[in-house]
């Protein structure tokens, strides 16, 4: 009995430690400035909720426009990533293309320091006029995500026994048919998980968005970073924006909780 109480006490403590800071975003978003800066603990949860922060965010800042930019960039780059990664991963898994070296090269580009790539990319993008365009950020995010997506999909393809495909070939299916009718239905769950990861990562990407966008293609993260200031941070606006921006991520994480550990460990740990 005491063990049980201790177990639940510890579990609840850990969960509070994890969730309270996130809850703080949603509490602050509905507070007036007077309540935000009120030092009494009572005001943590007892306050008159107001929508002023949201109203000001929508009226005085291009929040929805930037939010739409984030959607366009992350959905666009996710689709492009899948189109590139799916065939490549299939090739790596079925024929061990490049004998492991290519796979190493693929994954090693993920470790590439972004700050290194930023200068040359910036110069080239300036020359071809891709700065501050959706297409430019879509391409960049695709580059960031393809190697990860390929590696993760490679793991999922490896789970499909090669005999299954050989049997289908014996039955007279050609390559395209094997892929369409046998492999694709089996890879669909893995594809969905991989796509979710790419979606979240491009949703969260900040550094390149910050450097490569001005106005037209500015994603919402860059807007939120502008509420930061050495002396005065606009906490109300910042939390209101953050509350909306992180909501899709939180929902996706909740529904893919079973696959997150597998994804983050490149398929090594089947959480």
């Amino acid at each position, binding site marked *: 009995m005491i063990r049980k109480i201790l177990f639940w006490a510890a579990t609840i403590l850990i969960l509070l430690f994890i969730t309270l800071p996130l809850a703080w975003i949603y509490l602050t978003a509905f507070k007036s400035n007077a309540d935000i800066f009120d*030092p009494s*603990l009572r005001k943590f949860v007892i306050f008159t909720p107001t929508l002023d922060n949201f109203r000001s965010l929508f009226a005085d800042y291009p929040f929805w426009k930037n939010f739409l930019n984030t959607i366009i960039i992350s959905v666009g780059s996710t689709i492009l990533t899948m189109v590139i990664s799916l065939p490549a991963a299939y090739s790596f898994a079925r024929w061990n293309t490049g004998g492991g070296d290519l796979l190493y090269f693929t*994954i090693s580009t993920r470790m590439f320091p972004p700050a290194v790539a930023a200068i040359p990319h910036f110069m080239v993008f300036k020359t071809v006029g891709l700065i501050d365009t959706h297409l430019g950020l879509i391409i960049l995010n695709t580059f960031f995500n393809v190697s990860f997506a390929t590696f993760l999909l490679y793991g999922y393809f490896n789970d499909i026994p090669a005999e299954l495909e050989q049997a289908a070939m014996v039955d007279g299916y050609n390559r395209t048919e094997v892929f369409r009718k046998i492999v694709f239905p089996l890879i669909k769950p893995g594809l969905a998980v991989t796509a979710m990861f790419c979606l979240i990562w491009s949703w969260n990407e900040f*550094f390149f968005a*910050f450097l490569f966008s001005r106005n037209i293609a500015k994603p919402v993260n860059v807007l939120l970073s502008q509420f930061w200031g050495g002396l005065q941070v606009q906490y109300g606006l910042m939390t209101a924006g953050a509350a909306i921006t992180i909501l899709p991520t939180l929902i996706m994480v909740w529904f893919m909780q079973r696959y997150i550990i597998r994804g983050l460990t490149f398929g090594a740990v089947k959480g």
Partner: protein
Amino acid sequence: MEAVGRKPTIWETLTNEKNFKWTLVAPLLIILVIFALYPLIYSFYFSFHDWGMQGAPIMTGLKNFRQLVFDQTFLSAVGRTFKAMVICISVELLLGLGIALLWNRDFPGQNIVRGLALLPLMVAPLILSLLWYFLLDYNFGAVNQVLEAIGLSKVYWWSPNMALYTICFITIWQWFPFSTFVLLAGLKSLPKDVFEAARVDGASGWYTFRRLTLPMLTPLIMIIVVLRAMWLIRLMDPLFGTTRGGVNTELLDWIVYRTSFVMFDIGYGSAMAVFSWALTMILCMLMFRQLMKALAANR
């Protein structure tokens, strides 16, 4: 597909048994070569030059690198990055192991617990850094208000002596669920009969943990260390919402960014970038082997 009608020969060459596998990886390789190799060559080129984005680059040989080796600001940024790496990885591992052992049982609501614990893992680091900057503010931060209410003194979270640890704290807060659930997956997959046998033989809990559990978890611990090291050497986003490289928190990627994009010293910035790249590659080569071994052991 559109090539079928017009130029069947090219399509056929691309899709015959010998070439098909290469055709499938071609788009990936093209994008990787353009976006990874080109910047590297570019950075190498400019690391031997002086260039401030204006006029023609002046060839200076190894001057940038010689300057780099004696640049105290740069060296401390490298040192700080490794310090943060060691702190974050060890705390995450210890916390993760403890909590994994706690949760390694069936209990009601375990799916809800997992769902809640994983929530911060995928939230944008930038947004979390903005949030923590607020929560840990000296005057208005909720954490200091609670500390004061329970009779403790407020903490200067963003003072020059403290800020780097605060950055580590934010990172650990976001990432300890990762090691927790990796290790939990490992604990759940351990063979039950071995532990049964140990219990029958009268082995103590600590002995079983040290001699059985820990060795069996080693490949997973390796995976955590390697992956976290790879991500942490690139630690940068949390700085944007907090100190912006001030108060002794300038990390490796931040100084590369600041030199190139704030001071526009492309030559020197490129030299730093090349150094950072080489460091990462050495680290990755050392670790990739381990990762591959651990991955193979776990498949």
